[in-house]
C-alpha cells in the first residue's frame, strides 16, 4: 500500500511522535531545525492527499505498532488473527497459512499477495507466500491488510487480498532502536523444558536526507507435544514448531531506496506419506532472499517511481526419516515496476503503472542431501514464464463524494491475457462517518508447478489452466463516535476457475494418463459474507471485537476416495461459518494486562464434524524505565484447537493449531 496509508495510523492514535527534547546547552537553532524537520514530515503527509480509514478506496485494516505492543503479538501471523475475514491456519505441510474470505489454499499459499515495504514476495515455482513471519515482530511499524480483490494495483496473486508488512523507520533525526528477547516453554504444563523463544535487535537512524533500518531476529515457537497415529497405526509424539531467523536492511538516501530481507525458517512437517518413514515430524526448511532497489522522482505534486525486485526462495521438504531425501523447490523472480502518480487538476488524480516479471524454476526435484544428487527433476527444471502488465487508475474527489476507477491489463506467456478492473465510490456523511461501495476483479496466474509438474507421470501439471479469478462487490459503513469506532462490510464474491488437484483421466501434450492426479480448474463458487469491527480506544483502555461471517457454495464439489471410505470435498466444507476475535488491554501506572481470544464456529472435516473451539491468551507486564517486561500465557485453557486437514484429505481429519498451554517471558528495551 502507498504512503497515504500512513495517516491511518495517525487517526487511530498510533501516529509518529517527535522524539526530541531541548537538552541543556543546545542552541535555539538546533531546536528550530528539529521543529522544521518534524513539520516538514506533516506537510509531506498532507501533500499526498492523506487518506483516512473513512475515505480510503479499499477496506483496509491497519495493525499499527501501538496495537502490536499493546496486545503482545509474537509474530505477524499472530497479529493477523484479529482481522475479521482472515484465517491463519496450518495444513499438513505448512504453518501459518494466511487466508482471506474462505480462500483456502490447498497446496500452496498463493491466493493473497504478501509484501514487505510494498515489495511483493512469493516463491517462483508455486506462487506461495508462506512465510509471513520472515520479519521479526519488533522490526515492524505496521501491518496493512486489504481484503478483497486487489489485482488492479498489485497484479497477480492479490486474488483475495493483500498484506503489506511495513518496517519501522526512525521518526526524528538521530538514532533509536530496540533490543528484545524471550524465553518460552517447550513441552507445556510444568515439565520444566524451556527454550529461547525470541531474540531481536532493531537499529534505526535518520539524517537530513537519509535513513536506514537494520534488524536481526530469531523466533522459536513450539507447542506442547501431542500423540499422532499414522496410516500404519504407529504412534509417536510430535512437537509442532516454527522457527524463523531473519535479517533486514532498509535504507533511503535522497531519491534512492534499498531493501534487503534474508530469512531462514524451519517448521515441522507431517510427512509426505503421513508415516514416520516419510519425514513426519521433521523439519521443512525455507531459505529466502528478497532484494529491491527503488528510485523516486517527485516534483510539484507528481511522482515517478521505479522499483527493481529480485526474489529467491528455496524450500526443502523432508521425504525420509533421516532427512537425507528431500523435495526441493528452488526458483527466483525478477520484477521491474514503473509507477506514475499526479494530481492534474484540483479534484482529479491519476495513477499509471507498468510491470514486467520473470519467474524461473531452477528445480522442483527429489534431492539426496548425502550425495548432493538430484534424483528426479519432476519435470520442472528450466521452466520459466514472463508476465507484463499495465494499469491505470483515475480518482475524482468532490466533497462529500469520492470515486476511483481503475483497470489492469496483463499478458502472461502461459495463459495469455487478462483484464481486471475495480471501482470504488465513497460518500462521506461527515469526517467521522462514511459509506463505501467497492466492486472489483482480481486474478492469479497459474504457477509453474500447476502448469508443468510431472512426478513420475502420476502427479501432473496442466499447461492449459486458466487463471483463477475473483470478482466481488462489497458495501461498507464506518462510524467513529467518541471513543468507539465501528465498521461493517457486507460482500458477495464469485471465485472462478479455482485450481485444485483432481484424480482421473487426463491428457497432456497428446499423452493420455489414466488415474492421474492432475491440476484442473473448478467451476464457480459464490461467497457471501459479513465482517464487523468494533474498537474502543481510550488513553489507557483499549478493546476490540471483530466478527467474520461467511457462507460459500459447493461449486467445486468433487468425490474423493480415502482409506476411511469415499467422501465429498469442496472448499467451503472446511471454512468455519463464523470467527470472532476479541481483546482488551488495560494500563494502570507502569503495569498493563491484556487478554485476547479467537473463536471458531464448528467445522467439517472429511468424515467428521468439529465442535466450536476457541483459544485464549493473557499477558501481564510492566514498564521499568525504557524496558518492558511481559509474562504471557498462550492458550490458557491448555486445550487442543484443531483445523480440518483439507489438503491430504485422508488419514488425518484435522491439524492442530494449538496443542496446549505455552508460557513465555519477553523483555523489550527501547533506546
Amino acid at each position: 500500500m502507498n504512503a497515504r496509508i500512513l495517516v491511518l495510523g495517525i487517526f487511530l492514535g498510533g501516529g509518529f511522535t517527535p522524539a526530541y527534547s531541548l537538552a541543556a546547552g543546545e542552541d535555539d537553532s538546533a531546536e528550530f531545525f528539529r521543529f522544521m524537520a518534524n513539520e516538514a514530515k506533516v506537510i509531506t503527509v498532507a501533500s499526498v492527499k492523506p487518506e483516512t480509514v473513512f475515505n480510503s478506496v479499499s477496506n483496509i485494516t491497519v495493525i499499527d505498532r501501538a496495537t502490536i505492543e499493546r496486545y503482545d503479538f509474537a509474530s505477524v501471523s499472530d497479529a493477523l488473527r484479529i482481522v475479521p475475514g482472515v484465517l491463519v491456519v496450518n495444513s499438513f505441510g505448512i504453518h501459518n497459512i494466511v487466508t482471506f474470505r474462505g480462500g483456502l489454499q490447498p497446496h500452496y499459499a498463493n491466493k493473497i499477495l504478501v509484501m514487505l515495504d510494498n515489495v511483493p514476495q512469493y516463491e517462483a515455482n508455486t506462487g506461495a507466500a508462506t512465510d509471513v513471519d520472515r520479519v521479526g515482530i519488533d522490526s515492524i511499524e505496521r501491518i496493512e491488510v486489504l481484503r478483497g480483490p486487489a489485482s488492479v494495483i498489485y497484479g497477480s496473486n492479490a486474488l483475495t487480498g493483500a498484506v503489506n508488512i511495513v518496517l519501522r523507520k526512525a521518526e526524528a533525526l538521530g538514532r533509536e532502536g530496540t533490543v528484545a528477547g524471550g524465553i518460552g516453554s517447550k513441552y507445556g504444563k510444568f515439565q520444566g523444558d524451556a527454550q529461547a523463544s525470541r531474540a531481536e535487535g532493531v537499529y534505526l537512524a535518520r539524517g537530513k536526507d537519509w535513513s536506514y533500518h537494520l534488524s536481526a531476529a530469531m523466533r522459536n515457537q513450539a507447542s506442547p507435544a501431542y500423540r499422532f497415529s499414522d496410516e500404519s497405526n504407529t504412534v509417536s509424539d510430535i512437537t509442532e514448531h516454527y522457527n524463523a531467523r531473519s535479517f533486514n536492511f532498509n535504507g533511503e538516501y535522497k531519491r534512492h531506496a534499498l531493501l534487503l530481507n534474508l530469512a531462514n525458517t524451519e517448521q515441522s512437517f507431517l510427512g509426505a506419506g503421513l508415516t514416520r518413514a516419510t519425514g513426519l515430524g521433521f523439519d521443512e526448511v525455507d531459505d529466502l532472499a528478497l532484494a529491491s532497489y527503488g528510485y523516486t522522482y517527485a516534483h510539484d505534486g507528481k511522482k515517478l517511481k521505479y522499483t527493481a525486485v529480485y526474489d529467491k526462495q528455496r524450500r526443502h521438504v523432508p521425504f525420509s526419516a533421516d532427512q537425507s531425501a528431500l523435495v526441493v523447490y528452488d526458483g527466483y523472480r525478477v520484477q521491474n515496476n514503473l509507477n506514475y502518480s499526479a494530481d492534474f487538476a484540483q479534484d482529479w488524480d491519476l495513477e499509471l503503472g507498468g510491470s514486467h516479471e520473470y519467474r524461473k524454476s531452477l528445480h522442483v526435484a527429489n534431492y539426496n542431501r548425502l550425495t548432493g544428487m538430484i534424483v528426479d527433476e519432476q519435470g520442472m527444471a528450466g521452466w520459466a514464464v514472463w508476465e507484463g502488465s499495465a494499469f491505470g487508475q483515475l480518482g475524482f474527489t468532490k466533497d462529500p463524494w469520492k470515486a476511483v476507477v481503475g483497470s489492469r491489463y496483463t499478458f502472461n506467456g502461459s495463459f495469455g491475457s487478462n483484464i481486471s478492473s475495480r471501482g470504488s465510490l465513497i460518500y462521506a456523511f461527515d469526517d467521522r462517518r462514511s459509506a463505501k461501495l467497492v466492486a472489483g476483479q482480481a486474478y492469479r496466474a497459474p504457477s509453474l508447478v500447476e502448469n508443468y509438474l510431472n512426478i513420475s507421470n502420476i502427479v501432473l501439471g496442466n499447461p492449459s489452466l486458466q487463471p483463477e479469478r475473483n470478482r466481488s462487490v462489497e458495501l461498507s459503513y464506518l462510524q467513529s463516535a467518541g471513543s468507539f469506532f465501528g465498521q461493517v462490510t457486507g460482500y458477495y464474491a464469485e471465485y472462478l476457475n479455482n485450481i485444485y488437484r483432481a484424480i482421473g483421466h487426463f491428457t497432456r501434450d497428446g499423452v493420455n494418463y489414466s488415474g492421474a492426479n492432475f491440476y484442473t480448474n473448478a467451476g464457480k463458487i459464490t461467497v457471501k459474507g459479513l465482517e464487523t469491527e468494533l474498537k474502543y480506544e481510550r488513553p489507557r483502555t483499549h478493546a476490540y471485537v471483530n466478527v467474520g461471517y461467511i457462507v460459500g457454495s459447493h461449486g467445486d464439489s468433487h468425490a474423493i476416495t480415502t482409506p476411511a471410505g469415499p467422501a465429498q470435498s469442496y472448499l467451503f466444507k472446511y471454512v468455519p461459518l463464523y470467527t470472532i476475535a476479541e481483546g482488551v488491554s488495560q494500563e494502570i501506572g507502569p503495569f498493563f494486562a491484556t487478554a485476547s481470544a479467537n473463536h471458531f464456529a464448528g467445522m467439517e472435516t472429511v468424515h467428521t464434524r468439529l465442535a466450536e473451539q476457541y483459544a485464549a491468551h493473557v499477558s501481564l507486564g510492566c514498564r521499568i524505565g525504557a524496558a518492558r517486561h511481559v509474562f504471557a500465557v498462550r492458550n490458557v485453557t491448555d486445550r487442543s484447537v484443531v483445523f480440518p486437514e483439507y489438503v491430504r484429505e485422508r488419514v488425518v481429519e484435522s491439524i492442530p493449531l494449538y496443542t496446549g498451554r505455552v508460557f513465555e517471558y519477553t523483555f523489550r528495551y527501547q533506546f
Partner: protein
Amino acid sequence: MTRYRAAAPLALLLFARLAAASPPAATEIEAVLSSASGPYPAASDSFVKTLAREVTTVRLPGRLPAASARVIVAFGGEAALQAYPKSSTLIACLSPGLAGRLLHSGPFVFIAMKPAPMRLLSELHRVQPGLKRLAVLSHTRDMASYLADLKRAGASLGIEIIAPAARSPDEVPDALRALLAAKADAVWLAPDPSLVTFESFQTIKQFAWDNDVPFYAPTRGLAAAGAAAAVSVSPEEVGRLAAELARRALAGETLPAIVYPARTELTVNLQSAQKAGLRISPEALGKDDEVIK
C-alpha cells in the same frame, strides 16, 4: 458454559473498567499538542495563561477532543491534521506550510508563523534603510497569497519583492544564483519547513557573506547562528494570539482564514551583518531589540 469460561474474565475486565471510568468534564476549549517537546508547550502555556479559563489539554497520541468542544486549538502540524468535529472552530498554530491544507471541514483560522507583511518589511527597512529589492526564499506555491500581500506592502515602502523558485533544499543554490542575477539587496528566508534545513541555512549564510547580500531569518536562533537579523514571532506570542482568537470564536465572531501576528521581536547579529557588508546603525535599534555582538 464451559466454552465461554475464558471469555468471562475478558468481559469482566472490560465492563468493570468501563463502569468505573469517569470521563473528564467536557470543556468548551481544548488544546491539542503535537508533542510534549519543541515550541508547542511554551505556546500552549502562554495560551492557557492568557485565556485564564479552564482548558483541556491533550498531547498526541491521546484522546481527541469531544464533539462538545466549541473551540480546538492545535499546536503543530500533526495536531492540526487530526479529524475534529465539524461543529468546532479549529485554531491551528505552529504549523508552518499547512495554510490551505487543513482538513477541517468546519470553521478554522490559521495563525501564520510569518510576521504581517508590512511589519516584516518595516523592521527590515529599519535595519537596512537602503533596502530596495528583497528576495524571498520559500516554496512559491505555498506562499502565493503572502507574497501578494508582501508585494503590496513593499510597494508602499518602495521595496521590490522578488521570489526565486525553490521547492526543496536542493533548489536553493539555483535560487540564490537567480537572486544574485536579479541584484537583490537582501534575502529573507521564510519559515518554510520544506526549505529550512541545517544544510540550506549554511548555504544561504555562506552565500550572504561571500556576496555581501544580507540574509534575514525567521527565528532568533538563526540570527545567533549567522543570519544578519531575524524578525521572529515567539511561541509565547502565538499562544497569546490563539487565546485572543479563541475568545472571539466563543463570542460567535467569524474569524478570518489566516491571521498574521502583529507583535514581533527583532534580533540583530552585528558580526554576521558586517560579514554580509551591512553596517547597522545603533540609532536604528530600539530598547526592545536584541543585539548579538
